[in-house]
């Protein structure tokens, strides 16, 4: 087996073995989708809330894995010296990074494979435009993974854990995943629109809304900027060995 494939297998195995990570990447998104589809408490105008919720929860799932899940796992791997140990093998950083990205994508595929059938059972009738969806997922994953690796590569693992979960909560509220931004007061709405979460939600929503629907260009621009900026900062600041206390 090649080194890259072996590393990819370990990344997937360990993510799936970690119960906290499963709760975050699958449990919470499924729970939110089911609960708010059945209990009509969110300010959603659509005839069927699941039509708004399903794309939002898919976007949330992407964020939960590529930012919070990746940040926590990588942060602890760094603090336990795993990254340092792998650094003394022929694997090399490019292949380690490639394996991590492939691992994130694999988990996203699993998330979609669970969430989409659940949403359809709840009455969702999506009309998929594949290319815009792939574009949105790639940009969103890149932007959030950059944020996650930025935290994991600079902060102590415990701080990364707290911050990655804190940001998850902030983005959950401000990302338009569940609560439409139209409900927000003006300045807050403007601020929320500049965040990667709401841009990703807009793009995923449009990708499932049929051939006629197009996402605002602003959303593409915002997400693309985040997807360029965060990996650049992460790459420039990432430390491979544990922080010295």
């Amino acid at each position, binding site marked *: *087996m090649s080194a890259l494939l*072996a*590393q990819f297998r370990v990344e997937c195995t360990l993510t799936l073995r970690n119960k906290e990570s499963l709760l975050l990447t699958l449990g919470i998104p499924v729970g939110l989708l089911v609960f708010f589809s059945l209990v009509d408490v969110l300010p959603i105008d659509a005839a069927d809330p699941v039509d708004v919720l399903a794309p939002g929860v898919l976007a949330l799932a992407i964020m939960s894995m590529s930012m919070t899940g990746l940040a926590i796992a990588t942060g602890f791997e760094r603090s336990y*010296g*795993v990254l340092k*140990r*792998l650094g003394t*093998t*022929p694997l090399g950083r490019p292949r380690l990074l490639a394996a991590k990205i492939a691992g994130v994508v694999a988990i996203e595929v699993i998330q979609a494979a669970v969430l989409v059938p659940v949403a359809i059972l709840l009455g969702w009738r999506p009309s998929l435009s594949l290319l815009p969806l792939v574009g949105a997922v790639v940009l969103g994953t890149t932007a959030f993974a950059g944020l996650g690796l930025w935290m994991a590569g600079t902060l102590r693992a415990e701080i990364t854990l707290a911050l990655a979960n804190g940001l998850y909560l902030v983005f959950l509220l401000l990302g338009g995943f569940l609560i439409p931004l139209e409900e927000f007061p003006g300045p807050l709405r403007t601020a929320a629109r500049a965040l990667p979460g709401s841009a990703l939600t807009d793009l995923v929503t449009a990708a499932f809304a049929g051939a006629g629907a197009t996402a605002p260009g602003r959303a593409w621009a915002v997400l693309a900027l985040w997807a360029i900026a965060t990996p650049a900062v992460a790459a420039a600041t990432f430390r491979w060995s544990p922080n*010295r206390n």
Partner: protein
Amino acid sequence: MSGPATTAVAVDDLTVRYGDLTAVDGISFTSSAGEVLALLGPNGAGKTSTVEVLEGYRHAAGGRVSVLGHDPERERSAVVGRIGVMLQDGGVYPAIRPPEMLRLLAAMYAHPADPDGLLERVGLADRAGSTWRQLSGGEQQRLSLAMALVGRPEVAFLDEPTAGVDVRGRQVIRSIVRELADDGVAVVLCTHELDEAEKVADRVVIIDRGRVVGAGTLAELRSQTSGEVRFSADPGLDLRALGVHVGATVTEVGAGEYLIEGAHDPQLAAKLTAWLAERGATLGDLRAGRQRLEDVFLELTRGDEPVDGR
């Protein structure tokens, strides 16, 4: 493996800095294939920093190092597949199982050892279903050692391989280290335990505060230090009279514990026992000539400045 010893690792005037702190300050040594070399020194002496440079992991501020004829930092790809590394704190995923970790590493090398056979060899075959965090400290160390060996290295860097390991585990680790050297591997191990260096090393480099303060085989190191003899007897002996009798300086370092310095008389022991017998004094412990490495170590690393807490 026979034939002339080949230099596997060469370190020449190596300096490593962390900001203003100089952790390694002009260290030089070499190690050969088939030899166990111990870098011995107190914690914070610069041993790990030195080895990290040799692993291609840390940048040297000055000096030159070569591993198997290559610069480990600039020619990383020529070195990294031929070395095996055991880190001080493992560097293992907490939730991974021993065979999974070994198979992962095995996939990275051209001619790996069989992971299952290796688990057997380090005595972890019956722990294959446990995760790293479920292993005891000693079991974790043995897995770390197996991780260093899975790529069939030509040079093995082992950082504190027996730290936190029980007596039986230490014996397993020592015998594997010995076998490695007998198979022609150059083993470079760091330890702060004199006992460990005494038991496994062919040669010792003593490092203190980033500098080499002594190097050689154990026999060479022991003979480097001045002719000291220590003995215990009844307290309150007449030091001046004894000094005149044996022709050296005698001090009572503790109640009934004596130190003779500058003694080069082969008849010293005979003269001492005769002198004591004349006075009806009982001789307890007598240590001379073959000093324990501990004494050498303490003498060589004894400095004027207080050792900092790093």
